[in-house]
Protein backbone atom coordinates (compact mmCIF):
# COMPACT_ATOMS: atom_id res chain seq x y z
CA UNK A 1 0.00 0.00 0.00
CA UNK A 2 1.37 3.44 -0.85
CA UNK A 3 2.31 5.79 1.92
CA UNK A 4 -0.21 8.24 0.54
CA UNK A 5 -2.95 5.74 0.75
CA UNK A 6 -2.00 4.62 4.22
CA UNK A 7 -1.74 8.15 5.53
CA UNK A 8 -5.17 9.06 4.21
CA UNK A 9 -6.68 5.83 5.42
CA UNK A 10 -5.27 6.47 8.87
CA UNK A 11 -6.78 9.95 8.85
CA UNK A 12 -10.18 8.64 7.82
CA UNK A 13 -10.07 5.99 10.52
CA UNK A 14 -9.19 8.59 13.13
CA UNK A 15 -12.06 10.76 11.90
CA UNK A 16 -14.42 7.83 12.26
CA UNK A 17 -13.28 7.24 15.84
CA UNK A 18 -13.71 10.92 16.67
CA UNK A 19 -17.17 10.98 15.11
CA UNK A 20 -18.15 7.85 16.97
CA UNK A 21 -17.10 9.34 20.29
CA UNK A 22 -18.85 12.63 19.57
CA UNK A 23 -22.00 10.78 18.58
CA UNK A 24 -21.90 8.91 21.84
CA UNK A 25 -21.41 12.08 23.85
CA UNK A 26 -24.38 13.55 22.04
CA UNK A 27 -26.54 10.46 22.71
CA UNK A 28 -25.53 10.59 26.34
CA UNK A 29 -26.38 14.28 26.55
CA UNK A 30 -29.82 13.45 25.25
CA UNK A 31 -30.28 10.69 27.82
CA UNK A 32 -30.08 7.92 25.29
CA UNK A 33 -26.82 6.28 26.32
CA UNK A 34 -25.02 5.69 29.61
CA UNK A 35 -21.81 7.57 30.35
CA UNK A 36 -18.62 6.63 28.55
CA UNK A 37 -14.85 7.08 28.54
CA UNK A 38 -14.00 8.62 25.17
CA UNK A 39 -10.69 8.24 23.39
CA UNK A 40 -10.80 11.76 21.92
CA UNK A 41 -7.24 12.92 21.39
CA UNK A 42 -5.80 9.42 21.45
CA UNK A 43 -6.89 8.27 18.01
CA UNK A 44 -3.38 8.18 16.61
CA UNK A 45 -2.17 5.69 19.19
CA UNK A 46 -5.04 3.34 18.42
CA UNK A 47 -4.85 3.61 14.64
CA UNK A 48 -1.07 3.64 14.50
CA UNK A 49 -0.68 0.47 16.54
CA UNK A 50 -3.65 -1.53 15.30
CA UNK A 51 -2.75 -0.87 11.66
CA UNK A 52 0.59 -2.56 12.33
CA UNK A 53 -1.04 -5.82 13.47
CA UNK A 54 -1.79 -8.88 11.39
CA UNK A 55 -5.14 -10.63 11.17
CA UNK A 56 -4.17 -13.39 13.61
CA UNK A 57 -2.95 -11.04 16.27
CA UNK A 58 -5.10 -10.46 19.32
CA UNK A 59 -5.89 -7.30 21.21
CA UNK A 60 -6.73 -6.69 24.84
CA UNK A 61 -8.08 -3.29 25.72
CA UNK A 62 -9.74 -1.43 28.54
CA UNK A 63 -12.46 1.08 29.42
CA UNK A 64 -11.24 3.51 26.73
CA UNK A 65 -11.55 1.05 23.90
CA UNK A 66 -13.54 2.61 21.06
CA UNK A 67 -10.43 3.60 19.14
CA UNK A 68 -8.93 0.14 19.34
CA UNK A 69 -12.13 -1.53 18.27
CA UNK A 70 -12.86 0.80 15.38
CA UNK A 71 -9.24 0.73 14.24
CA UNK A 72 -9.59 -3.04 14.13
CA UNK A 73 -12.64 -2.74 11.91
CA UNK A 74 -15.43 -3.05 14.43
CA UNK A 75 -18.89 -2.19 13.16
CA UNK A 76 -19.98 1.12 14.68
CA UNK A 77 -23.58 -0.06 14.51
CA UNK A 78 -22.92 -2.98 16.80
CA UNK A 79 -20.76 -0.84 19.04
CA UNK A 80 -23.47 1.76 19.51
CA UNK A 81 -26.02 -0.99 20.05
CA UNK A 82 -23.78 -2.39 22.78
CA UNK A 83 -23.24 0.93 24.47
CA UNK A 84 -26.97 1.55 24.53
CA UNK A 85 -27.57 -1.89 26.02
CA UNK A 86 -29.20 -3.46 23.00
CA UNK A 87 -29.40 -7.07 21.90
CA UNK A 88 -27.47 -6.50 18.67
CA UNK A 89 -24.41 -5.20 20.47
CA UNK A 90 -21.17 -7.14 20.32
CA UNK A 91 -21.90 -8.50 23.80
CA UNK A 92 -25.69 -8.68 23.42
CA UNK A 93 -25.99 -5.52 25.51
CA UNK A 94 -24.43 -7.17 28.54
CA UNK A 95 -21.27 -5.08 28.52
CA UNK A 96 -22.38 -1.53 27.92
CA UNK A 97 -19.60 0.84 26.99
CA UNK A 98 -16.89 -0.26 29.37
CA UNK A 99 -15.93 -3.79 28.42
CA UNK A 100 -16.76 -4.36 24.77
CA UNK A 101 -15.11 -7.47 23.40
CA UNK A 102 -15.44 -8.68 19.83
CA UNK A 103 -13.92 -12.10 19.64
CA UNK A 104 -14.47 -12.32 15.88
CA UNK A 105 -12.06 -9.39 15.48
CA UNK A 106 -9.54 -10.72 17.96
CA UNK A 107 -10.44 -7.99 20.45
CA UNK A 108 -10.82 -10.16 23.50
CA UNK A 109 -11.28 -10.15 27.27
CA UNK A 110 -11.85 -6.41 27.54
CA UNK A 111 -11.95 -5.43 31.20
CA UNK A 112 -12.81 -2.13 32.80
CA UNK A 113 -10.88 -3.09 35.90
CA UNK A 114 -7.81 -0.96 35.43
CA UNK A 115 -5.00 -3.48 35.26
CA UNK A 116 -7.31 -6.31 34.23
CA UNK A 117 -5.96 -6.29 30.69
CA UNK A 118 -2.42 -6.60 32.04
CA UNK A 119 -3.35 -9.59 34.18
CA UNK A 120 -5.09 -11.42 31.35
CA UNK A 121 -2.62 -10.64 28.57
CA UNK A 122 0.03 -12.99 29.91
CA UNK A 123 -2.45 -15.85 29.73
CA UNK A 124 -3.34 -15.07 26.16
CA UNK A 125 0.36 -14.85 25.45
CA UNK A 126 0.85 -18.23 27.07
CA UNK A 127 -1.78 -19.74 24.78
CA UNK A 128 -0.02 -18.17 21.78
CA UNK A 129 3.27 -19.55 22.91
CA UNK A 130 2.00 -23.06 23.60
CA UNK A 131 -0.56 -23.57 20.87
CA UNK A 132 1.66 -22.55 17.94
CA UNK A 133 1.28 -20.03 15.14
CA UNK A 134 3.02 -16.72 14.82
CA UNK A 135 0.26 -14.53 16.23
CA UNK A 136 1.10 -12.04 18.92
CA UNK A 137 -0.92 -10.37 21.65
CA UNK A 138 -1.24 -6.60 21.96
CA UNK A 139 -2.27 -5.23 25.32
CA UNK A 140 -3.40 -1.60 25.48
CA UNK A 141 -3.36 0.00 28.91
CA UNK A 142 -3.14 3.45 30.42
CA UNK A 143 -0.48 5.18 32.44
CA UNK A 144 -2.82 4.71 35.40
CA UNK A 145 -2.87 0.95 34.88
CA UNK A 146 0.91 1.09 35.02
CA UNK A 147 0.55 2.22 38.65
CA UNK A 148 -1.19 -1.03 39.55
CA UNK A 149 1.19 -3.75 40.67
CA UNK A 150 -0.13 -5.95 37.91
CA UNK A 151 2.01 -3.93 35.55
CA UNK A 152 5.17 -5.20 37.16
CA UNK A 153 3.78 -8.70 37.60
CA UNK A 154 2.65 -8.96 34.00
CA UNK A 155 5.87 -7.68 32.46
CA UNK A 156 7.98 -9.83 34.74
CA UNK A 157 6.09 -13.00 33.91
CA UNK A 158 6.05 -12.24 30.18
CA UNK A 159 9.80 -11.67 30.34
CA UNK A 160 10.67 -14.79 32.26
CA UNK A 161 8.29 -17.01 30.28
CA UNK A 162 9.07 -15.54 26.86
CA UNK A 163 5.54 -14.54 26.03
CA UNK A 164 4.81 -12.78 22.71
CA UNK A 165 3.05 -9.76 24.19
CA UNK A 166 3.29 -6.22 22.87
CA UNK A 167 2.44 -3.93 25.75
CA UNK A 168 1.18 -0.55 24.56
CA UNK A 169 0.96 2.09 27.24
CA UNK A 170 -1.19 4.99 26.19
CA UNK A 171 0.27 7.57 28.48
CA UNK A 172 -2.38 10.26 28.21
CA UNK A 173 -1.21 12.16 31.32
CA UNK A 174 -4.44 11.48 33.20
CA UNK A 175 -5.67 8.82 35.54
CA UNK A 176 -9.34 9.69 35.82
CA UNK A 177 -9.34 12.92 37.87
CA UNK A 178 -5.68 12.80 38.85
CA UNK A 179 -2.84 14.10 36.77
CA UNK A 180 -0.07 11.63 36.20
CA UNK A 181 2.44 13.92 37.89
CA UNK A 182 0.58 13.42 41.20
CA UNK A 183 0.89 9.67 40.95
CA UNK A 184 4.51 8.95 40.18
CA UNK A 185 7.93 10.51 39.97
CA UNK A 186 8.75 8.46 36.91
CA UNK A 187 8.86 10.27 33.63
CA UNK A 188 7.40 7.32 31.76
CA UNK A 189 7.09 3.58 32.12
CA UNK A 190 9.91 2.32 29.94
CA UNK A 191 12.56 2.31 32.67
CA UNK A 192 10.47 -0.11 34.68
CA UNK A 193 10.15 -2.37 31.68
CA UNK A 194 13.89 -2.29 31.13
CA UNK A 195 14.49 -3.12 34.79
CA UNK A 196 12.46 -6.30 34.26
CA UNK A 197 14.22 -7.29 31.07
CA UNK A 198 11.56 -6.10 28.64
CA UNK A 199 12.66 -4.10 25.61
CA UNK A 200 10.91 -0.75 25.45
CA UNK A 201 10.52 2.34 23.33
CA UNK A 202 8.68 5.65 23.50
CA UNK A 203 6.88 7.37 20.66
CA UNK A 204 4.95 10.57 20.04
CA UNK A 205 1.47 9.19 20.47
CA UNK A 206 -0.20 11.99 18.58
CA UNK A 207 1.68 11.37 15.34
CA UNK A 208 -0.10 8.47 13.69
CA UNK A 209 2.68 7.78 11.23
CA UNK A 210 5.32 7.78 13.92
CA UNK A 211 3.20 5.44 16.01
CA UNK A 212 2.69 3.16 13.06
CA UNK A 213 6.40 3.00 12.38
CA UNK A 214 7.29 2.33 16.01
CA UNK A 215 4.55 -0.26 16.27
CA UNK A 216 5.69 -1.99 13.10
CA UNK A 217 9.15 -2.38 14.60
CA UNK A 218 7.68 -3.56 17.88
CA UNK A 219 5.33 -6.06 16.25
CA UNK A 220 8.09 -7.43 14.10
CA UNK A 221 10.33 -7.81 17.13
CA UNK A 222 7.72 -9.63 19.18
CA UNK A 223 6.77 -11.86 16.28
CA UNK A 224 10.36 -12.82 15.65
CA UNK A 225 11.72 -13.08 19.18
CA UNK A 226 8.53 -14.37 20.86
CA UNK A 227 9.41 -12.05 23.70
CA UNK A 228 7.55 -9.10 25.23
CA UNK A 229 8.10 -5.50 24.20
CA UNK A 230 6.71 -2.30 25.61
CA UNK A 231 5.77 0.70 23.51
CA UNK A 232 4.84 3.88 25.34
CA UNK A 233 2.78 6.35 23.32
CA UNK A 234 2.85 9.85 24.81
CA UNK A 235 -0.53 11.39 24.18
CA UNK A 236 -3.26 13.33 25.93
CA UNK A 237 -6.88 12.83 26.89
CA UNK A 238 -8.59 15.80 25.26
CA UNK A 239 -12.01 15.26 26.82
CA UNK A 240 -12.87 14.45 30.42
CA UNK A 241 -12.51 11.08 32.08
CA UNK A 242 -16.09 9.90 31.84
CA UNK A 243 -18.90 11.79 30.15
CA UNK A 244 -20.10 14.26 31.25
CA UNK A 245 -16.99 15.93 32.67
CA UNK A 246 -16.44 19.68 32.68
CA UNK A 247 -12.63 19.29 32.96
CA UNK A 248 -12.61 22.06 35.54
CA UNK A 249 -9.64 20.36 37.18
CA UNK A 250 -7.52 20.50 34.02
CA UNK A 251 -4.83 23.15 33.54
CA UNK A 252 -6.16 25.20 30.59
CA UNK A 253 -2.69 25.91 29.26
CA UNK A 254 -1.81 22.23 29.17
CA UNK A 255 -5.09 21.42 27.50
CA UNK A 256 -4.57 24.17 24.92
CA UNK A 257 -1.08 22.90 24.20
CA UNK A 258 -2.39 19.45 23.46
CA UNK A 259 -5.41 20.70 21.52
CA UNK A 260 -2.92 22.21 19.15
CA UNK A 261 -1.40 18.77 18.86
CA UNK A 262 -4.73 17.08 18.09
CA UNK A 263 -3.67 13.99 16.15
CA UNK A 264 -6.33 14.51 13.51
CA UNK A 265 -5.26 18.09 12.87
CA UNK A 266 -1.63 17.00 12.75
CA UNK A 267 -2.19 14.25 10.23
CA UNK A 268 -4.44 16.37 8.08
CA UNK A 269 -1.90 19.18 8.05
CA UNK A 270 0.88 16.77 7.15
CA UNK A 271 -1.08 15.27 4.27
CA UNK A 272 -2.12 18.68 3.00
CA UNK A 273 1.41 20.01 3.34
CA UNK A 274 2.71 17.06 1.36
CA UNK A 275 0.02 17.56 -1.28
CA UNK A 276 -1.53 14.20 -0.51
CA UNK A 277 -4.95 15.45 0.53
CA UNK A 278 -7.41 17.71 -1.27
CA UNK A 279 -10.24 19.72 0.24
CA UNK A 280 -12.65 17.55 -1.74
CA UNK A 281 -11.28 14.40 -0.25
CA UNK A 282 -11.72 15.84 3.22
CA UNK A 283 -15.31 16.66 2.42
CA UNK A 284 -15.85 13.17 1.08
CA UNK A 285 -14.45 11.62 4.21
CA UNK A 286 -16.47 13.85 6.49
CA UNK A 287 -19.61 12.89 4.62
CA UNK A 288 -18.82 9.19 4.72
CA UNK A 289 -18.11 9.27 8.42
CA UNK A 290 -21.28 11.20 9.13
CA UNK A 291 -23.38 8.71 7.14
CA UNK A 292 -21.77 5.79 8.92
CA UNK A 293 -22.61 7.27 12.27
CA UNK A 294 -26.16 8.20 11.30
CA UNK A 295 -26.73 4.63 10.22
CA UNK A 296 -25.19 3.37 13.41
CA UNK A 297 -27.48 5.49 15.54
CA UNK A 298 -30.52 4.31 13.61
CA UNK A 299 -29.39 0.71 13.93
CA UNK A 300 -28.77 0.96 17.66
CA UNK A 301 -32.07 2.66 18.29
CA UNK A 302 -33.95 0.05 16.31
CA UNK A 303 -32.25 -2.81 18.09
CA UNK A 304 -34.34 -4.33 20.88
CA UNK A 305 -33.27 -4.64 24.49
CA UNK A 306 -32.18 -8.13 25.45
CA UNK A 307 -34.77 -10.29 27.17
CA UNK A 308 -34.55 -10.65 30.93
CA UNK A 309 -33.42 -14.24 30.50
CA UNK A 310 -30.17 -12.86 29.16
CA UNK A 311 -29.21 -11.85 32.71
CA UNK A 312 -28.47 -15.43 33.63
CA UNK A 313 -28.09 -16.93 30.16
CA UNK A 314 -24.31 -16.74 29.82
CA UNK A 315 -23.11 -16.87 33.41
CA UNK A 316 -22.04 -20.50 33.25
CA UNK A 317 -20.69 -22.43 30.29
Amino acid sequence: MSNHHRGVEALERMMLIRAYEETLVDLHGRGRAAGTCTSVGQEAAAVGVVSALGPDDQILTNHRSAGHLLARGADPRRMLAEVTGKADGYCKGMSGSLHIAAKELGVILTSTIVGGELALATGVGLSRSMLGGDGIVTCFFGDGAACEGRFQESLNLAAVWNLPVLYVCENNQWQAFVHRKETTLADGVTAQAAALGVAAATVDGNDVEAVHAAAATAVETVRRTRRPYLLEARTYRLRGHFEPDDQSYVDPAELAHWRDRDPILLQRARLERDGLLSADEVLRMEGAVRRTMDEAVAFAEASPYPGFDQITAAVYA
Partner: protein
Amino acid sequence: MTSMTVNDAISAALAEEMRRDPTVLMFGEGTATKRRDLLDEFGPARVRNTPLAEGILAGTAAGAAATGLRPVVDLLFAPFLCYAMDEIVNSAGKLRAISGGQFSFPMVVMAMTGAGWGVGAQHNHNLEAWFVHAPGLKVVMPSNAADFKGLLKAAIRDDNPVLFFTDIALGYAEGEVPDGELVVPLGKAAVRREGADVTLVSYAKTVNHCLDAAGRLAEQGIEAEVVDLRTLKPLDEDTILASVRKTGRLVVVHEASRLCGVGAEIAALVSEKAFRSLRAPVLRLTGPDAPAPASYPLEQAFVPQAGAIAEAAAGLVRGA
Protein backbone atom coordinates in the same frame (compact mmCIF):
# COMPACT_ATOMS: atom_id res chain seq x y z
CA MET B 1 -33.59 19.30 60.30
CA THR B 2 -31.97 20.14 57.00
CA SER B 3 -32.80 18.49 53.73
CA MET B 4 -29.74 17.23 51.92
CA THR B 5 -28.63 14.56 49.51
CA VAL B 6 -26.81 11.44 50.56
CA ASN B 7 -23.68 12.75 48.85
CA ASP B 8 -23.90 15.95 50.87
CA ALA B 9 -24.50 14.01 54.05
CA ILE B 10 -21.30 12.05 53.38
CA SER B 11 -19.38 15.27 52.75
CA ALA B 12 -20.73 16.80 55.94
CA ALA B 13 -19.74 13.78 57.98
CA LEU B 14 -16.22 13.80 56.58
CA ALA B 15 -15.76 17.53 57.21
CA GLU B 16 -17.10 17.36 60.74
CA GLU B 17 -14.91 14.42 61.72
CA MET B 18 -11.82 15.95 60.16
CA ARG B 19 -12.52 19.13 62.07
CA ARG B 20 -13.02 17.26 65.32
CA ASP B 21 -10.00 14.99 65.08
CA PRO B 22 -6.72 16.05 63.44
CA THR B 23 -5.67 12.44 62.95
CA VAL B 24 -8.49 11.82 60.47
CA LEU B 25 -7.30 12.01 56.88
CA MET B 26 -8.74 10.88 53.57
CA PHE B 27 -7.23 9.64 50.36
CA GLY B 28 -8.17 7.94 47.15
CA GLU B 29 -7.99 8.08 43.38
CA GLY B 30 -9.35 11.57 42.82
CA THR B 31 -10.24 12.39 46.43
CA ALA B 32 -8.47 15.75 46.40
CA THR B 33 -9.89 16.62 42.99
CA LYS B 34 -13.44 15.68 43.82
CA ARG B 35 -13.50 16.86 47.44
CA ARG B 36 -12.16 20.30 46.78
CA ASP B 37 -13.95 21.69 49.83
CA LEU B 38 -12.11 19.28 52.12
CA LEU B 39 -8.83 20.00 50.39
CA ASP B 40 -9.30 23.72 50.87
CA GLU B 41 -10.20 23.36 54.52
CA PHE B 42 -7.77 20.67 55.62
CA GLY B 43 -4.91 20.97 53.18
CA PRO B 44 -3.04 18.52 50.96
CA ALA B 45 -1.57 16.41 53.76
CA ARG B 46 -4.99 15.33 54.96
CA VAL B 47 -6.86 15.22 51.66
CA ARG B 48 -4.88 13.34 49.05
CA ASN B 49 -5.06 12.14 45.53
CA THR B 50 -3.28 8.85 45.04
CA PRO B 51 -1.78 6.65 42.41
CA LEU B 52 -4.14 4.12 40.91
CA ALA B 53 -3.43 1.08 43.07
CA GLU B 54 -6.13 -0.06 45.45
CA GLY B 55 -3.98 -2.66 47.19
CA ILE B 56 -1.38 -0.23 48.41
CA LEU B 57 -4.06 2.30 49.32
CA ALA B 58 -5.77 -0.14 51.62
CA GLY B 59 -2.43 -1.31 52.98
CA THR B 60 -1.37 2.26 53.60
CA ALA B 61 -4.61 2.88 55.44
CA ALA B 62 -4.04 -0.20 57.59
CA GLY B 63 -0.45 0.70 58.36
CA ALA B 64 -1.38 4.26 59.19
CA ALA B 65 -4.34 3.19 61.30
CA ALA B 66 -2.14 0.94 63.41
CA THR B 67 0.30 3.76 64.11
CA GLY B 68 -1.74 6.77 65.09
CA LEU B 69 -3.83 8.00 62.19
CA ARG B 70 -7.49 7.43 61.38
CA PRO B 71 -7.58 7.10 57.61
CA VAL B 72 -10.63 7.11 55.39
CA VAL B 73 -9.76 5.54 52.07
CA ASP B 74 -12.09 5.82 49.10
CA LEU B 75 -11.72 2.83 46.77
CA LEU B 76 -14.47 4.12 44.46
CA PHE B 77 -16.42 1.01 43.41
CA ALA B 78 -16.92 -2.20 45.31
CA PRO B 79 -15.43 -4.53 42.68
CA PHE B 80 -12.16 -2.62 42.95
CA LEU B 81 -11.93 -3.93 46.51
CA CYS B 82 -10.91 -7.17 44.85
CA TYR B 83 -7.45 -5.62 44.50
CA ALA B 84 -7.34 -4.81 48.20
CA MET B 85 -8.68 -7.97 49.81
CA ASP B 86 -5.35 -8.96 51.28
CA GLU B 87 -4.85 -5.64 52.99
CA ILE B 88 -8.43 -5.45 54.24
CA VAL B 89 -8.94 -9.08 55.20
CA ASN B 90 -5.52 -10.53 55.97
CA SER B 91 -3.98 -7.41 57.47
CA ALA B 92 -6.57 -5.00 58.85
CA GLY B 93 -9.01 -7.76 59.78
CA LYS B 94 -6.55 -10.22 61.32
CA LEU B 95 -3.40 -8.56 62.60
CA ARG B 96 -5.07 -7.40 65.76
CA ALA B 97 -5.99 -10.92 66.81
CA ILE B 98 -2.81 -12.47 65.41
CA SER B 99 -0.69 -10.06 67.40
CA GLY B 100 -2.59 -10.81 70.59
CA GLY B 101 -4.22 -7.39 70.53
CA GLN B 102 -1.13 -5.24 70.06
CA PHE B 103 -2.66 -3.16 67.25
CA SER B 104 -5.96 -1.67 66.31
CA PHE B 105 -7.06 -0.49 62.90
CA PRO B 106 -9.35 2.53 63.09
CA MET B 107 -9.95 2.99 59.38
CA VAL B 108 -12.84 3.33 57.00
CA VAL B 109 -12.92 1.88 53.49
CA MET B 110 -15.54 3.55 51.31
CA ALA B 111 -16.94 2.18 48.07
CA MET B 112 -20.01 2.55 45.89
CA THR B 113 -22.02 -0.24 44.36
CA GLY B 114 -25.47 -1.14 43.12
CA ALA B 115 -27.67 -0.73 40.10
CA GLY B 116 -28.48 2.65 38.68
CA TRP B 117 -25.57 3.79 36.61
CA GLY B 118 -25.52 1.28 33.77
CA VAL B 119 -21.81 0.59 34.03
CA GLY B 120 -21.95 -3.16 34.41
CA ALA B 121 -20.63 -5.84 36.70
CA GLN B 122 -17.08 -4.62 37.10
CA HIS B 123 -18.37 -1.45 38.75
CA ASN B 124 -21.54 -2.83 40.24
CA HIS B 125 -21.19 -5.82 42.50
CA ASN B 126 -22.67 -5.95 45.97
CA LEU B 127 -19.86 -7.60 47.89
CA GLU B 128 -20.79 -6.65 51.46
CA ALA B 129 -21.37 -10.27 52.50
CA TRP B 130 -17.69 -11.10 51.99
CA PHE B 131 -16.73 -8.65 54.70
CA VAL B 132 -19.43 -9.89 57.04
CA HIS B 133 -17.95 -13.35 56.60
CA ALA B 134 -14.36 -12.23 57.33
CA PRO B 135 -13.35 -11.67 60.96
CA GLY B 136 -12.32 -8.37 62.48
CA LEU B 137 -14.27 -6.09 60.16
CA LYS B 138 -17.45 -4.08 60.50
CA VAL B 139 -19.80 -3.37 57.60
CA VAL B 140 -22.18 -0.47 57.14
CA MET B 141 -24.62 0.13 54.30
CA PRO B 142 -27.10 2.92 54.99
CA SER B 143 -30.37 3.70 53.24
CA ASN B 144 -30.93 7.43 53.80
CA ALA B 145 -29.13 10.72 54.19
CA ALA B 146 -29.35 10.98 57.97
CA ASP B 147 -27.91 7.51 58.42
CA PHE B 148 -25.20 8.13 55.89
CA LYS B 149 -24.08 11.06 57.96
CA GLY B 150 -24.49 9.51 61.38
CA LEU B 151 -23.09 6.11 60.50
CA LEU B 152 -20.10 7.51 58.66
CA LYS B 153 -19.24 9.59 61.70
CA ALA B 154 -19.58 6.53 63.90
CA ALA B 155 -17.48 4.50 61.48
CA ILE B 156 -14.67 7.06 61.58
CA ARG B 157 -14.73 7.00 65.37
CA ASP B 158 -14.77 3.23 65.59
CA ASP B 159 -11.47 1.56 66.44
CA ASN B 160 -12.03 -1.24 63.97
CA PRO B 161 -11.81 -1.34 60.19
CA VAL B 162 -15.22 -0.43 58.81
CA LEU B 163 -16.39 -1.05 55.28
CA PHE B 164 -18.76 1.73 54.33
CA PHE B 165 -20.80 0.99 51.21
CA THR B 166 -22.82 3.54 49.30
CA ASP B 167 -25.61 2.25 47.12
CA ILE B 168 -25.00 4.43 44.10
CA ALA B 169 -28.67 4.93 43.34
CA LEU B 170 -29.00 6.79 46.64
CA GLY B 171 -26.32 9.41 45.95
CA TYR B 172 -28.75 12.11 44.94
CA ALA B 173 -31.60 11.00 47.20
CA GLU B 174 -32.68 13.85 49.48
CA GLY B 175 -33.45 13.30 53.12
CA GLU B 176 -34.00 15.17 56.34
CA VAL B 177 -30.86 15.25 58.43
CA PRO B 178 -31.02 16.39 62.06
CA ASP B 179 -28.98 19.50 62.73
CA GLY B 180 -26.06 19.38 65.14
CA GLU B 181 -23.99 16.40 66.14
CA LEU B 182 -25.41 13.19 64.73
CA VAL B 183 -23.72 9.90 65.45
CA VAL B 184 -25.70 6.77 64.66
CA PRO B 185 -24.24 3.86 66.59
CA LEU B 186 -22.96 0.91 64.60
CA GLY B 187 -24.85 -2.32 65.13
CA LYS B 188 -28.35 -0.89 65.56
CA ALA B 189 -31.06 -1.62 63.02
CA ALA B 190 -34.04 0.72 62.59
CA VAL B 191 -37.67 -0.25 62.33
CA ARG B 192 -38.84 2.00 59.50
CA ARG B 193 -42.47 0.98 59.66
CA GLU B 194 -44.27 -1.11 62.21
CA GLY B 195 -46.62 -3.93 61.36
CA ALA B 196 -47.84 -7.17 62.82
CA ASP B 197 -48.29 -9.49 59.85
CA VAL B 198 -44.91 -9.88 58.17
CA THR B 199 -41.38 -8.59 58.60
CA LEU B 200 -39.44 -7.22 55.66
CA VAL B 201 -35.72 -7.01 56.44
CA SER B 202 -33.52 -5.08 54.08
CA TYR B 203 -30.72 -2.52 53.74
CA ALA B 204 -29.55 0.19 51.34
CA LYS B 205 -31.84 1.16 48.48
CA THR B 206 -34.04 -1.90 48.77
CA VAL B 207 -35.28 -0.54 52.09
CA ASN B 208 -37.18 1.95 49.96
CA HIS B 209 -38.53 -0.83 47.83
CA CYS B 210 -39.71 -2.57 51.01
CA LEU B 211 -41.38 0.58 52.25
CA ASP B 212 -43.07 0.91 48.91
CA ALA B 213 -44.15 -2.73 49.12
CA ALA B 214 -45.45 -2.16 52.65
CA GLY B 215 -47.61 0.65 51.32
CA ARG B 216 -49.08 -1.65 48.71
CA LEU B 217 -49.60 -4.38 51.27
CA ALA B 218 -51.44 -1.99 53.56
CA GLU B 219 -53.93 -1.41 50.78
CA GLN B 220 -54.60 -5.16 50.92
CA GLY B 221 -54.98 -5.03 54.67
CA ILE B 222 -51.58 -6.54 55.39
CA GLU B 223 -49.39 -4.73 57.90
CA ALA B 224 -45.72 -5.19 57.09
CA GLU B 225 -42.94 -4.24 59.46
CA VAL B 226 -39.88 -2.90 57.67
CA VAL B 227 -36.48 -3.35 59.31
CA ASP B 228 -33.53 -1.40 57.92
CA LEU B 229 -30.35 -3.18 59.02
CA ARG B 230 -28.07 -0.16 58.51
CA THR B 231 -25.11 -2.09 59.90
CA LEU B 232 -24.51 -5.54 58.47
CA LYS B 233 -21.81 -6.37 60.98
CA PRO B 234 -22.27 -6.38 63.86
CA LEU B 235 -25.80 -7.46 63.02
CA ASP B 236 -28.60 -6.27 65.27
CA GLU B 237 -29.96 -9.71 66.03
CA ASP B 238 -32.30 -8.44 68.73
CA THR B 239 -34.27 -6.13 66.47
CA ILE B 240 -34.60 -8.77 63.78
CA LEU B 241 -35.67 -11.48 66.20
CA ALA B 242 -38.09 -9.23 68.06
CA SER B 243 -39.83 -8.35 64.83
CA VAL B 244 -40.07 -11.92 63.59
CA ARG B 245 -41.29 -13.11 66.99
CA LYS B 246 -44.08 -10.59 66.60
CA THR B 247 -45.03 -11.18 62.97
CA GLY B 248 -44.11 -14.85 62.53
CA ARG B 249 -43.20 -14.19 58.93
CA LEU B 250 -40.04 -12.98 57.25
CA VAL B 251 -38.97 -11.82 53.82
CA VAL B 252 -35.34 -10.72 53.48
CA VAL B 253 -34.61 -8.44 50.56
CA HIS B 254 -31.31 -7.33 49.05
CA GLU B 255 -29.67 -6.69 45.75
CA ALA B 256 -26.58 -8.82 46.41
CA SER B 257 -26.51 -12.41 45.24
CA ARG B 258 -28.59 -14.87 47.16
CA LEU B 259 -26.01 -17.55 47.86
CA CYS B 260 -24.21 -16.95 51.16
CA GLY B 261 -25.51 -13.39 51.20
CA VAL B 262 -26.67 -11.38 54.19
CA GLY B 263 -30.16 -12.72 53.57
CA ALA B 264 -28.90 -16.24 54.11
CA GLU B 265 -27.42 -15.20 57.43
CA ILE B 266 -30.66 -13.62 58.58
CA ALA B 267 -32.76 -16.56 57.47
CA ALA B 268 -30.41 -18.88 59.31
CA LEU B 269 -30.43 -16.73 62.41
CA VAL B 270 -34.19 -16.66 62.50
CA SER B 271 -34.62 -20.34 61.77
CA GLU B 272 -32.43 -21.08 64.76
CA LYS B 273 -33.45 -18.44 67.26
CA ALA B 274 -37.04 -17.63 66.36
CA PHE B 275 -38.01 -21.04 65.04
CA ARG B 276 -40.98 -21.51 67.33
CA SER B 277 -42.40 -18.14 66.27
CA LEU B 278 -42.21 -18.80 62.54
CA ARG B 279 -45.58 -19.35 60.88
CA ALA B 280 -44.36 -19.57 57.31
CA PRO B 281 -41.23 -20.32 55.29
CA VAL B 282 -38.57 -17.64 55.33
CA LEU B 283 -38.26 -16.06 51.92
CA ARG B 284 -35.35 -14.29 50.31
CA LEU B 285 -35.70 -11.88 47.42
CA THR B 286 -32.26 -11.08 46.11
CA GLY B 287 -30.23 -10.41 43.02
CA PRO B 288 -29.62 -13.51 40.91
CA ASP B 289 -26.40 -15.52 40.79
CA ALA B 290 -25.18 -13.45 37.85
CA PRO B 291 -22.99 -10.44 37.15
CA ALA B 292 -25.00 -7.23 37.05
CA PRO B 293 -25.93 -6.32 33.48
CA ALA B 294 -25.21 -2.89 32.01
CA SER B 295 -28.34 -2.64 29.89
CA TYR B 296 -30.77 -0.38 31.69
CA PRO B 297 -33.93 -2.51 31.78
CA LEU B 298 -31.95 -5.58 32.73
CA GLU B 299 -30.11 -3.70 35.43
CA GLN B 300 -33.45 -2.71 36.93
CA ALA B 301 -34.83 -6.22 36.63
CA PHE B 302 -31.79 -7.46 38.53
CA VAL B 303 -32.89 -5.70 41.72
CA PRO B 304 -35.86 -6.93 43.77
CA GLN B 305 -38.65 -4.42 43.18
CA ALA B 306 -41.61 -3.39 45.32
CA GLY B 307 -44.15 -5.38 43.35
CA ALA B 308 -42.32 -8.64 43.79
CA ILE B 309 -41.72 -7.96 47.47
CA ALA B 310 -45.39 -7.20 48.09
CA GLU B 311 -46.43 -10.29 46.22
CA ALA B 312 -44.05 -12.53 48.15
CA ALA B 313 -45.12 -11.09 51.49
CA ALA B 314 -48.81 -11.35 50.66
CA GLY B 315 -48.28 -14.95 49.61
CA LEU B 316 -46.74 -15.74 52.98
CA VAL B 317 -49.55 -14.08 54.89
CA ARG B 318 -52.23 -15.82 52.86
CA GLY B 319 -50.40 -19.10 53.33
CA ALA B 320 -49.79 -19.59 49.62
